[in-house]
């Protein structure tokens, strides 16, 4: 297995496969484009499985590494590798891509080839982000991944899609330009190296550390998104097609969080420690403030979008407490959020495809006409509310335990999510699913078909498996997280 360039396969199979799908052209070839896309997505997922199966949990070193000079003149290399922090995201990303292809099977009837291709290419680029170990390579993937998502929202989105797409694009672009400056500065300081691993060892004074920290913070905070640079996300979700929302929530939000662990903490540990109170404050605002905002949303997608922001608040909170429960809990939360938010958006998509409304007030009594769907939706809603036995509980629980260790009042505020998360999720569930049948449209709803049952059942299994036995997920993280914490504890000054 080690002989195969697995990471390159994980990146390039979807990208090249996506180009192939694109080549099928007009919509009369749509069935071919769908089958081809599914095949590419499944193969792309299968090649990531050996990453998990063959992962060595005893080392924090980069595994499945690949190295080739790319632009020797500037010492830019095609350097890939994963550790316990990044490996799971490659697998998750490839998995979600399969779900998205299945979810868009019937719903997307226009420009099918382009739609499928955009998702496949984005998937490959995101795998590139999670496995790049060269600063320029990372930056190229990071920026390139914006384009397909921009197109997905801008072409297949709702009525206000252009505003949302541009808002999304400008927010994230503005953030990442600052990161480019930081990358170039680090290149010079490191004596002409773009290697991220070299940057980890690079001694830096407090002032440059602080400035680099801010550059990274702004870039990553927009992606996560953290309060107060989060307002692009609800708009983007509302306008995006279902598949776009799924990828946005399940994978794209993880890019920023991943950046904190790969860049901010190890490269500028002293600044990260000094700035931790700021990040923790912003994270707690995300949990509490956004929790209240989510409560009053009238649009289901906006509600879940806000709930995503609150859940990501747990991620950044976990990172900046600098204990292993916090960081591992945050990573678990990221994986779980991939399943749960993906599933929530798919459920809303199921309803939207039938009713063409995301407005909570247009629903009521859905359980009477769609009992199977209601059962799945209940499971995912409970996972979103962090019920034990589902994946949603594991990460929140770990972060809260880590927070009690760190500071009781931080834990106190974080734990309000138990109440707020249940309130906004179950109140929405009650209004949409329970009650008397609200109108004729609800009365005529058809329950989920085999294809919809299939992807919801697969996600349900993931959510339950991770909730009942999270051991394998945390096991792969230990070595890398411990090494990261040891590294952060040593001052670079």
């Amino acid at each position, binding site marked *: 297995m080690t002989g195969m360039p697995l990471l390159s396969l994980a990146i390039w199979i979807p990208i090249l496969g996506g180009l192939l799908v694109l080549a099928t052209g007009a919509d009369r070839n749509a069935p071919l484009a769908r089958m081809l896309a599914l095949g590419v997505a499944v193969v792309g997922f299968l090649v990531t499985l050996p990453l998990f199966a063959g992962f060595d949990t005893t080392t924090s070193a980069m595994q499945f590494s690949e190295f080739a000079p790319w632009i020797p003149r500037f010492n830019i290399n095609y350097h890939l590798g994963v550790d316990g922090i990044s490996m799971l995201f490659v697998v998750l990303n490839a998995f979600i891509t399969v779900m998205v292809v299945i979810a868009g099977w019937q719903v997307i009837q226009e420009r099918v080839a382009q739609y499928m291709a955009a998702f496949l290419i984005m998937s490959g680029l995101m795998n590139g982000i999670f496995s790049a170990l060269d600063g320029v390579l990372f930056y190229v993937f990071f920026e390139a991944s914006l384009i397909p998502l921009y197109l997905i929202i801008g072409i297949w989105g709702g009525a206000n899609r252009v505003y949302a797409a541009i*808002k999304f694009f400008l927010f994230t672009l503005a953030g990442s330009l600052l990161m480019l400056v930081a990358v170039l500065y680090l290149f010079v300081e490191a004596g002409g190296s773009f290697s991220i691993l070299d940057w980890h060892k690079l001694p830096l004074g407090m002032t440059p550390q602080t400035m680099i920290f801010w550059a990274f913070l702004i870039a990553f905070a927009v992606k996560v998104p953290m309060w*107060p640079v989060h*307002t692009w996300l609800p708009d983007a979700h509302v306008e995006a097609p279902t598949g776009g929302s799924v990828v946005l929530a399940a994978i794209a939000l993880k890019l920023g969080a991943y950046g904190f662990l790969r860049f901010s903490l190890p490269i500028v540990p002293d600044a990260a420690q000094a700035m931790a109170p700021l990040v923790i404050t912003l994270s707690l605002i995300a949990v509490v*403030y956004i929790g*209240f*905002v*989510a*409560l*009053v*949303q009238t649009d289901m997608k906006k509600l879940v979008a806000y709930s995503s922001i609150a859940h990501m608040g747990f991620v950044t909170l976990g990172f900046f407490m600098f*204990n*292993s*429960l916090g960081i*591992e*809990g945050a990573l678990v939360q990221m994986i779980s959020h991939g399943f749960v938010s993906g599933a929530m958006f798919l459920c809303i998509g199921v309803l939207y495809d039938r009713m063409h409304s995301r407005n909570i007030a247009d629903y009521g*009594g859905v*359980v*009477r006409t769609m009992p199977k769907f209601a059962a799945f939706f209940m499971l995912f809603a*409970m996972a979103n509310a962090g*019920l*034990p*036995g589902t994946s949603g*509980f*594991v990460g929140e*629980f*770990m972060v*809260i*335990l*880590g*927070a*009690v*260790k760190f*500071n*009781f*009042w931080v*834990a*106190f505020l974080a*734990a*309000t999510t*138990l*109440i707020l998360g*249940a*309130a906004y999720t*179950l*109140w929405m569930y*009650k209004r949409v*699913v*329970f*009650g*008397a049948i609200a109108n004729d449209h609800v009365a005529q709803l058809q329950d989920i078909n085999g294809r919809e049952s299939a992807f919801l059942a697969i996600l349900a299994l993931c959510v339950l498996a991770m909730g*009942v*036995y*999270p*051991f394998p997920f*945390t*096991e792969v993280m*230990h070595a890398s997280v411990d090494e990261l914490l040891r590294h952060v504890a040593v001052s670079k000054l």
Partner: protein
Amino acid sequence: MSDMKALYLLVPLAPLAGAILAGLFGRQLGRSGAHGVTILGVLVAFLASVVIFQDVRNGHLFNGTVYTWMESGGLKFEIGFLIDPLTTMMMLVVTFVSLMVHIYTIGYMKDDPGYQRFFSYISLFTFSMLMLVMSNNFLQLFFGWEAVGLVSYLLIGFWHDRPTAIYANLKAFLVNRVGDFGFLLGIGLIAAYAGSLNYAEVFAKAEGLAAMEMAGTGWPLMTAICICLFIGAMGKSAQVPLHVWLPDSMEGPTPISALIHAATMVTAGIFMVARMSPLFELSDAALSFVLVIGATTALFMGFLGIVQNDIKRVVAYSTLSQLGYMTVALGVSAYSAAVFHLMTHAFFKALLFLGAGSVIIGMHHDQDMRNMGGLRKYMPITWITSLLGSLALIGFPLFSGFYSKDSIIEAVHAATIPGAGYALVCVLLGVFVTAFYSFRMYFLVFHGEERFGKAHHDHHGDHEDEEPSSDHHHGLAPGQKPHESPWVVTLPLVLLAIPSVLIGMITIEPMLFGTWFQSAIFVADNHVGLSQLAASFTGAFGMAAHGLVTAPFWLAMAGVVLSWYFYMRRPDIPAAIQRRFSAIHTVLENKYYFDRFNEIVFAAGARVLGTGLWKGGDRALIDGVAVNGSARLVGWVAQIARLVQTGHLYQYALAMIVGVFVLLTFWLNLG
């Protein structure tokens, strides 16, 4: 030993298997298949529990891991079992009552379209509750804790087209979550300071923890831990002010009111505190807090039982009050008395609820006691068993409730902890109130004038505004007579009546004064607990004989006689009292305005806050000022810059000349 471990696993997994089969394959199994498989699962769990009980009596305890759930940050998170006397007692109670309720449900739900789903849920509940009581660690405890909450949520909202039901289940879940919020923080404190989630390991470090302070606050650590844990118990065991969900939970079908909202789940908080006795014993402040909350619940929730007209709601408020008694026992370190009352109460309250359910069947789903009366002629088995249950509830000597309640009152009497005086007044007055509302219900339902089949009230509890569309409470048509329920309903009543009468006198000696709970419950030397009572204990019959000359007995008798006089002889008197003291009556009718307060302050307040943050924060400030503001700023700068670019050559020339002039001036001055 390993074969015993398999048996331990069988206890929770058999009901789980039943739940999964009935839930996923309900249509294929059909109705009898669904109840067959779930009853079989619970029966297996009950029989296995009996075997385990015998094994524990022979001194075989067990504390071990089933599997490691996760590891992180030096903490091991495990799923495991602790099999000791406290656990086995709970296992027996849970599986027995659950079995009775499963059988009863065949009759109660026979016309319901959600038959299979209902059986799946109650079996899932049995699994969750067993995982909770069998746990040997805080993680699994929390799992079970939230899982029973989930099933409770699903079952309260079982009739999901009824607006009151889906309001009640959301309320129940959220109020419980408030308790869980405290509970989780308590678990977090234990994990952070004890470095373990395993009971035995934490208890071993309890002395050390008691000497510590909580970082950053200076509070005594053990008090903080215990109060946080107890907040969880307040949610689940419905103690004031987190009791508000329990009366509304009566929206669920009656079998689950008996199983979940009376006999088992709501006692989880009591069980948990008893299990944590090695921690609570080390904080007098926490015990006082427990005591005062419990005493308040015991008395003031009892008052509310007096003004209810819905038969289920009377029993519900009685449950609240009795849970208060158990909590009081915890507060005075009489943990075994609390657990003892938990057990006797599980039997007689399940009996009373199922009896009420039988009455409701007989009345064709009319729950209003004002439409009943004289039912003893038509429903003899229900009548006798309900009478036995009521006598147990009011603590009539020799009945099971007498032994458990009297022990609690004696323990409060002996206690010296702050708050014990207040608690004594509450529990003594509570005895009178309990007897009064219990026999008010008994007389109104089974004796007196036959009021059914006359006016059609269509009345359901205090939700008069609800749509009368649902077919779940239509009542008897004029001229129709109530009828006794089928055997699947009456058999559980009889089987529950037996322990309701006898279990107290049989088990008081080993449970309270023997060594039965020695390995499970810890009482510190400086707390009286039950030691004074033990010194004067002369056997079960001696205690009953002595009971006849004590205040609680006469208070109870006064309550019974007064209710008979008021509701059988002179119904004009309560009406006159109600008019005379209408202010008090209004307060009681409105349940001390807890619901109104919560709706205005918390529910509406949260929505106002959320709207304010969303429209004021996100929209106006962040998007309005910062985002669109910077976009406007760019636009504004561009507008100004555009003014300069007029396209007129003479203006460009002028600008150039001015520029050159300014630059020259600077350059010359510098030079």
